[in-house]
């Protein structure tokens, strides 16, 4: 029962008891620790720098090393250590994916909350806008956004042209920030329906009526009564949507419009390794596996959390 599960009072015990959630959490913790520790490992000479072109990185014929030799995952066509690039790539992918998830969650929760709580015309407008966004495939929308930006940067005006509000202007270059914003702005519609449905159910509960009868304002009811009860749903949705944002980030990287080189990203590693796939499959398989594992881990954790929050859904 939802009301008997306090996210903050209960420990992480249910997560360790749920096998799905535990498996996902372990993979993510391992990836996260590696990603965090990467610069330190490099300083300790345990890991190559991701853009270091070693003298031994290519063999005497100038060809990459395959996996399993002196380099665990081999080297790429420029003689860079693939293991190192995958680990440094995790820094980019995880941070961009999580930042994008946060962006999408903030927008998705805000839209779903307003639509569900106020209903009526606002609901109609917001939901049609959401559905409009859902009809365009996320990757196409992201490409369109990314196409607006280039390496040199573009100034974005958030004010009408005839008002001199320069504080609402900022320059956005293609980089980690622009990519997470783009992915975040593309991924929010999926959350809205679930949040809205939950809000519709919550606002009819008697404790919301009780808050209203005490004289609570709408904002107080939303913040104190609705949002805390929405939290389990939001957490599950956020974790599940991180799988999408990471996949989308990798997709943009593969298409060459993600975080620009020389920063290693899993998507760009796949596209760089693609021409050599037949002779050096490790160039594609290693970053590919990294993406698959991460996405799988977020999905496992999300599904596990869902079961913890709502045991009736267990299959």
């Amino acid at each position, binding site marked *: 029962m939802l009301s008997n599960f306090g996210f903050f009072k209960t420990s992480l015990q249910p997560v360790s008891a749920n096998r799905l959630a535990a498996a996902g959490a372990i993979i993510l913790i391992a990836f996260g620790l590696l990603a965090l520790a990467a610069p330190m490992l490099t300083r300790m000479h345990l890991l190559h720098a991701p853009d270091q072109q070693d003298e031994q990185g290519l063999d005497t014929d100038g060809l990459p090393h395959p996996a399993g030799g002196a380099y665990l995952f081999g080297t790429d066509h420029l003689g860079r250590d693939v293991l190192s690039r995958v680990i440094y790539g995790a820094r980019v992918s995880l941070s961009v994916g999580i930042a994008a998830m946060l962006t999408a969650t903030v927008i998705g929760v805000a839209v779903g909350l307003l639509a569900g709580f106020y209903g009526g015309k606002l609901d109609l407008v917001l939901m049609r806008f959401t559905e409009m966004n859902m009809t365009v495939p996320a990757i196409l929308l992201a490409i369109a956004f990314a196409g607006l930006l280039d390496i040199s940067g573009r100034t974005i005006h958030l004010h009408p042209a005839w008002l001199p509000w320069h504080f609402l202007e900022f320059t956005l270059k293609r980089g980690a920030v622009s990519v997470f914003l783009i992915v975040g702005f593309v991924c929010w519609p999926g959350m809205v329906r679930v949040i809205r449905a939950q809000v519709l159910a919550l606002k009819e*509960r*008697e*404790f919301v*009526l*009780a*808050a209203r*009868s*005490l*004289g609570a304002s709408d904002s107080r009811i939303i913040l104190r009564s609705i949002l*805390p009860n929405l939290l389990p749903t939001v957490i599950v949705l956020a974790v599940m949507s991180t799988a999408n944002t990471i996949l989308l980030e990798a997709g943009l990287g593969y298409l060459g419009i993600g975080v620009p080189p020389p920063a290693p990203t899993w998507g760009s590693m796949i596209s760089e390794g693609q021409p050599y796939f037949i002779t050096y499959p490790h160039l594609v398989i290693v970053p590919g596996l990294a993406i698959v594992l991460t996405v799988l881990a977020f999905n496992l954790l999300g599904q596990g959390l869902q079961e913890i929050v709502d045991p009736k859904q267990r299959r």
Partner: protein
Amino acid sequence: MTMSESLLEVKALKVHFPVNVGLFARPTEFVRAVDDVSFTIAPGETVGLVGESGCGKTTLGRAVIRLIEPTGGQILFDGMDLVPLKGAALRAQRRKFQMIFQDPFASLNPRAKVENIIGEALDIHRLVLNATARRQRVESLLQDVGLEAAHAQRYPHEFSGGQRQRIGIARALAVQPKLIVCDEPVSALDVSVQAQIVNLLRDLQQEHGMAYLFVAHDLAVVRHISRRILVMYLGRIVESGEARSVCQSPRHPYTQALISAVPVVDPKLKRRRMVLAGDVPSPIHPPAGCPFHPRCPVAEARCKTEVPALREVESGHWVSCHLAK
């Protein structure tokens, strides 16, 4: 009772819900949940409101304290009409009237500590100056309703139904209201706990002097606590008067049927049980004439055409029935 004496005076209150809400079509049919209801409550008085499920008593209780938007009529509280009030002006008035809800498992925020559930009322109306005063006030309110100060740090799911209802009562008391609408406050509780809660409500009333509008379908409970009783059928008040007068000499056939349905303790006592035929008619298309006539055992021809007005058959005892004497 004169006008100036009343705390709450409801005049011709109507709550109609549209049935077919479309994007373009205007609603053409309405559920007349509350239709042309008038009554008064004096300061410190307990008025019982009875009727079967679906007769509109919960809607009436909620509309009176503006939790449901009335379609028409007036709600004079201390002489001030609540119906036109909106936004902050209405929220400021809410301090004066509170509600105790039917389901103690649904009416407390599952993610808030008891201290914050009760304290929220104090915060909204700025009734305490600082956190220490807030904690002290919450703890004394908990003791007022028979709980312990230490309970403030717990969450609602750690309590039983009766204890939760006490928390709900403490929350309503926190703002020192003049009127509390009790919406079936004991119907979700065990019989043994019901009496405790009813007695607690009566003790609190003696101490603080607020008025109750006590909504229930259980006439025995209502008779126990109320000074006056309103009987509702299909969105209208069909009989009202002193509790004893209504219970001992009910004039309306519907009230007579209700009272004959109250179980008596003595098994040897033989009673004439009056069983009504049929179901409650749809409040979308209420019957013409007296709304009770299709089920009334004594209906005459004019009951099908003429709507009976409330008339005083005895001092303070009002009935809307053509045949009542």
